[in-house]
């Protein structure tokens, strides 16, 4: 006869309610793992999908996701000349904040090299990838745009031609994919007055220099388009993405390019490491500590619940002892209830989590390993938390029945 089950059935409402409470607590523990994995997932989403073997960035910087990186756009021409490189393409990444329907909207702008990279690798849930050099964007649906919606940024208007899912930055901002030129236009958009003032200042500075005084044409150009001044060249990009030929050793090519004094090179794995260790390490530790705390709290709460359930049965336990029940019967009664409480709580946590986590504003990724780890933790918690009740039960004297 299973005394634990009979007791539970007799107090079913209380047991279900208690299990539900434990389940909610365990769901938060599970969610913490999911938030951490979600952060990693989001941080690595571009690096993992963009299919680059090497990331060439501004000298001594850690790449566009960690800090500002500026390299000349024509760097890709230099890189293409390196043996073993089959493609090199510019990449732009920056974040803008605009207002939409009265609410702040942060967009992580990603510039793809047109026409080499049209964003065919993006996980589209609607629409298509980029099909023209300008004024089209593929946006993550977390930004809230509808397919075909127009978006005015700077002096241009862009049309949302495709929607992705789960493409967000490490900060949780939805990604929007433009061509490099458009991304730069958004990044370097200045008001007309600012441009006029800059041109005037440029002309004044050039006029004070010998070169300006001896080359009047330069003075004319200084007051015109920046693109018309060879010294300025085209606007900078964030990084150049390099794809190597099959069989080429990435370390060798990286060493070659690293020898140039103006750039640093990171492999795709290195970029991932930098993102995980640098960008989200503190968050990881914070979440990890919070998770440990939650496990402790869950253990204490479960221990108190099991202890209270044991106290409720102390007279029955004394009676069982009086009738000659072995300790195993009494330990089994308490331990089975603790394990059942943990198991049902775990089930509730998993079911509830599967339903609730997708509704969170940021990605919550719970892996099979997290489920197994939580199951092991719950088993441990159940056993540890029952010890308090078992200890109490073991100390009960059978003559307690007479009192």
């Amino acid at each position, binding site marked *: 006869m299973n005394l634990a089950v009979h007791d539970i059935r*007799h107090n079913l409402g209380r047991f279900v309610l208690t299990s539900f409470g434990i389940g909610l607590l365990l769901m938060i523990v599970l969610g913490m793992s999911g938030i951490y994995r979600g952060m990693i997932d989001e941080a690595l989403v571009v690096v993992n999908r963009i299919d680059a073997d090497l990331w060439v960035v501004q000298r001594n910087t850690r790449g566009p996701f960690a800090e500002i990186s500026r390299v000349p756009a024509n760097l890709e021409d230099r890189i293409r000349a390196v043996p073993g490189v089959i493609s090199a393409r510019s990449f732009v990444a920056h974040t803008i904040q605009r207002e939409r329907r009265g609410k702040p909207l942060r967009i992580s702008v990603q510039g793809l090299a047109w026409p080499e990279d049209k964003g065919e690798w993006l996980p589209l849930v609607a629409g298509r990838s980029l099909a023209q050099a300008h004024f089209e964007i593929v946006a993550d649906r977390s930004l809230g745009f509808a397919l075909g919606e127009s978006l005015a940024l700077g002096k241009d208007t862009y049309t949302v031609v495709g929607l992705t899912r789960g493409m967000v930055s490490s900060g949780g901002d939805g990604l929007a994919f433009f061509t490099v030129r458009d991304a730069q236009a958004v990044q370097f958009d200045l008001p007309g007055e600012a441009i006029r003032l800059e041109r005037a200042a440029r002309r004044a500075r050039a006029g004070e220099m010998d070169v300006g005084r001896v080359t009047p044409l330069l003075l004319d150009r200084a007051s015109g388009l920046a693109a018309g001044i060879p010294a300025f060249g085209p606007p900078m990009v964030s990084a150049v993405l390099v794809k190597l030929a099959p069989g080429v050793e990435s370390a060798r090519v990286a060493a070659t390019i690293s020898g140039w004094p103006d750039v640093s090179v990171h492999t795709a794995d290195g970029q991932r490491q930098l993102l995980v260790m640098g960008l989200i390490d503190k968050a990881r530790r914070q979440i990890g500590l919070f998770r440990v705390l939650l496990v402790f709290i869950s253990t204490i709460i479960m221990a108190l619940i099991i202890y209270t359930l044991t106290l409720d049965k102390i007279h*029955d336990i004394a009676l069982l002892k009086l009738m*000659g029940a072995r300790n195993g019967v009494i330990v089994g009664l308490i331990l089975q209830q603790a394990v059942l409480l943990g198991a049902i709580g775990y089930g509730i946590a998993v079911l509830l989590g599967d339903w609730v986590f997708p509704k969170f504003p940021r990605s919550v990724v719970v892996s099979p390993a997290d489920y197994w780890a939580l199951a092991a933790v719950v088993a441990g918690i159940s056993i540890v938390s029952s010890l308090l009740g078992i200890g109490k039960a073991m100390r009960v004297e059978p003559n307690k029945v007479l009192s």
Partner: protein
Amino acid sequence: MNDRADNTPAIEAEGLTKIYGTGNTEVVAMRDVSLRIQRGEVVALLGPSGAGKSTLLTALGLINPPTVGRITIGGVPVMDGAKSLVDARAFRRQHLGFVFQKANLIPFLNALQNVQVALEIADVPPRQARHRALELLDYLGVADRAHALPDALSGGQQQRVAVARALSNHPSLILADEPTAALDSQRGRQVMELFRKVAHEQGAAVIVVTHDQRALDVFDRIFEMEDGRLRPAQLPVQPSAKPLDAKHDPATSIKD
């Protein structure tokens, strides 16, 4: 142990003394109590509160050992002073039955399960335990309430289930501590008659601590305790030595 020679007393106690505390706080709850009860005997233990009745009962039940004295149950020495000569819990499981003032049924088990659990604790396989439990409930006239939870049973029914539980392991000794205190006089008498029936039919010795003097004729012998000492009771009512009237079967005559 039930198969042992009939001349062996169900229980024999010699010179039991129980002292609580030491020095100035020393209290002697039981003084040099000796007792011998045969199988099939029903014995009453009377006395005012604090006389030492429960102390004697718990000592004989291997719950609360005496400070001095020896206890032999069914010919097996079980206690020598405070030292237990057997595994007390295992011995209780196999040879003793208890009934209390309150029925003390486990609230989350129905009547049948309350009896069955005692059998399973004594290592009877579940199927046999269930069968035996049903037999016992039938014997005690509460088979029709087998699936009722204790809350749904009357006081008398609860007490009969408690008696069934006490009988489940074929005990050689049943110890009852004021089993009729929570019952009215009619039901109290029925329970006392039940003990007599059980003792006679099952060959168990029954010791009943009671304040209720209205059913003393049911007992074979009556003792009283005062200041920790045990002596035969001096009562106007003489205990019955007659065998139980077959026509007056308490198991079938009790109505709740």
